[in-house]
């Protein structure tokens, strides 16, 4: 295997793939450090799978480059690059047993010590006892692990996972998320995980690239993406967001003041001017005891009427209609016996301005 002597970081440089007039992937630049667990997150059709296939060599880019360290693999054949893939639905060879499935890549490269390598990886995925079974005789979760083993046994510079957990039920998916993370830590390979499931991406990845319409909307650690979404899309794709339209009035210390229909509100300093949208997550908003007391100094305050309240166990979800008739969501953690407010109550809401974020107006 071409184990790169140089740095094994993966670079996508100005990578583009068009199908006819449609740009599936539109001038993407990404740097994925060696050994990281990287997620490409986005809705179906956003270009994440096409990106993955270009890295795997299953799709040829229209323009741009794919590099591993200094090694340009843009046009290298799939079988010629140190990249392996865990396919959606696994793509295990139905006519070969588990052992042969896993040994497939090793045999192609006449790797010595094949037996031991296969046995080691079977142990890693805890399926040594099923080595001579056919894939069809395995459960979905077991097949998933075989697909993973078949890829990692080759010690690729980059391991691609294409919606690897998509076919599993919820419970198994949570288990496998933990398992995947464990294995990634253990083998230390670069994992690039393509998914449309934001929770899956956030719980496993070090870094997430959120893709939409063929471009990377935002790149960052899960926490950053959640707390500081840069675009409306990211804000709404990762969790739930309330947005209030307004106009930038001017700076105020570390903050920028925005004039909205519900009053003046503050958000962390932004370069944006003119019309903006102020975003705040529902769980950041709190109920004030009364209109005058219980609101910390400097908090953003709005008033409204509760129009709906639903108790879902860990929290209660309220819908509050503001003065400008806009409805926002408010999640209150279930710390009290009973409710903060009833439908029809006039309420005062507040939140720490540092939890607001500015988004370009739509």
């Amino acid at each position, binding site marked *: 295997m071409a184990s790169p002597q140089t740095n094994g970081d993966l670079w996508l440089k100005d990578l583009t793939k068009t199908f006819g007039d449609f740009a599936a992937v539109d001038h993407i630049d990404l740097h994925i450090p060696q050994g990281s667990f990287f997620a490409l997150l986005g809705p179906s059709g956003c270009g994440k799978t096409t990106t993955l296939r270009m890295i795997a060599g299953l799709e040829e880019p229209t323009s741009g480059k794919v590099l591993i360290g200094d090694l340009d693999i843009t046009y290298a*054949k799939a079988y010629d690059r140190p990249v392996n893939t865990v396919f959606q639905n696994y*793509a295990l060879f139905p*006519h070969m047993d588990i052992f042969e499935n896993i040994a*497939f890549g090793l045999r192609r490269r006449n790797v010595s010590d094949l037996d031991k390598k296969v046995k080691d990886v079977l142990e890693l995925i805890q399926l040594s006892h099923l080595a001579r079974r056919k894939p069809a005789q395995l459960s979905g979760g077991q097949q998933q692990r075989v697909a993973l083993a078949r*890829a990692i046994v*080759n010690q690729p510079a980059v391991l691609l996972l294409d919606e690897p957990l998509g076919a599993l039920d919820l419970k198994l998916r949570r288990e496998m998320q933990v398992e995947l993370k464990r294995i990634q830590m253990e083998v230390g390979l670069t994992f690039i995980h393509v998914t449309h499931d934001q929770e899956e991406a956030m719980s496993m990845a070090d870094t997430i690239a959120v893709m939409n319409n063929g471009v990377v909307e935002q790149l960052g650690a899960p926490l950053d993406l959640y707390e500081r979404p840069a675009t409306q899309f990211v804000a709404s794709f990762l969790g739930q967001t309330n947005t209030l339209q307004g106009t930038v009035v001017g700076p105020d210390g570390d903050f920028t003041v925005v004039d909205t229909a519900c009053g003046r509100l503050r958000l962390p300093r932004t370069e944006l001017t003119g019309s903006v949208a102020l975003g705040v997550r529902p769980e950041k908003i709190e109920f004030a005891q009364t209109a005058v007391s219980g609101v910390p100094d400097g908090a953003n305050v709005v008033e409204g009427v509760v129009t709906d309240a639903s108790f879902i166990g860990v929290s209660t979800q309220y819908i509050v209609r503001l003065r400008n008739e806009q409805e926002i969501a408010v999640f209150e953690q279930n710390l009290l016996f009973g409710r903060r407010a009833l439908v029809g109550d006039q309420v005062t809401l507040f939140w720490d301005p540092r939890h607001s974020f500015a988004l370009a107006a739509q």
Partner: protein
Amino acid sequence: MNAPVVPVPAAGVQAVRSTKAGTRRRWTPYLLLLPGLLWLGIFFIIPLASLLMQSLQTPVPNGLAGQFQQTWRFQNYIDTLSQPNFYNAMIRSFTYSFIATVLALLIAYPLAYAIALRAGRAKPLLLVLVVAPFFVSFILRTIAWKQVLGAEGPVVSTLQALHLVQQNFTIYPSSAAVIAGLTYNFLPFMTLPIFASLDRLDTRLVEAANDLYAGNLVAFRKVTLPLTMPGVVAGTLLTFIPASGDYINSELLGGSVNTTMIGKVIDSRFLVLSDYPAASVLSFTLMSIILAAVWLYVRKAGTEELV
């Protein structure tokens, strides 16, 4: 059907009902099988037995042509099969159909591959084209081949114009023309099952093989081919079996003595000569050899191992 005979206690109404239901359930599969078994019995087993019996008959002394009596004369087999005309035609039939099967496979596999995996939107159209010859009678198609391969037909004329062959060169009639005809006529039977298996093939498996360092050729040999073996086996059987018994091609595209296939011999002995025992001996032998060959082949190809 013994359950309902058992004396039933007064409180056993429930039990009776369930026993009856159980009986019905047990018999249902056999009832469902019945039409198929009847069909098989009437159209296969009985004719087969009658064929076997007929092969062991001898002429009625002083009887009319076509009158035979059952004498269980196994010597018929030795007498018939020792005639050079007959065993030569038999060997020739298998040789021709074997070569035609191999050729058809070599043509059909890439063809089916292209249609199934590379044709895109043209796939339905190309499939229709594969089947299109069926819209014209088998015999007419073969006659058309005769025109194509004839002395003044396009193939020979072109070869002669290019000075690739001598002026008196002919393709028809010849063994080659017969084999070409067989190959052509049975090509759809080879193509369709292979197409079906290729069409069903999960191409992600090929991508997976590529991803796991297999070049295209190795991916084909290790993944595509083994997974489409059921289609290959079905196609070769659908070609080899009828081709062995076919004689239209040898009749139309062959010459005389040296290209006769066994089907023609059986036909002539049966219809022209009313020599039913000899025709039966040849039919039964032909069928037995084909069955044995198929059995060996299917075992060797090991299709039962495939998913």
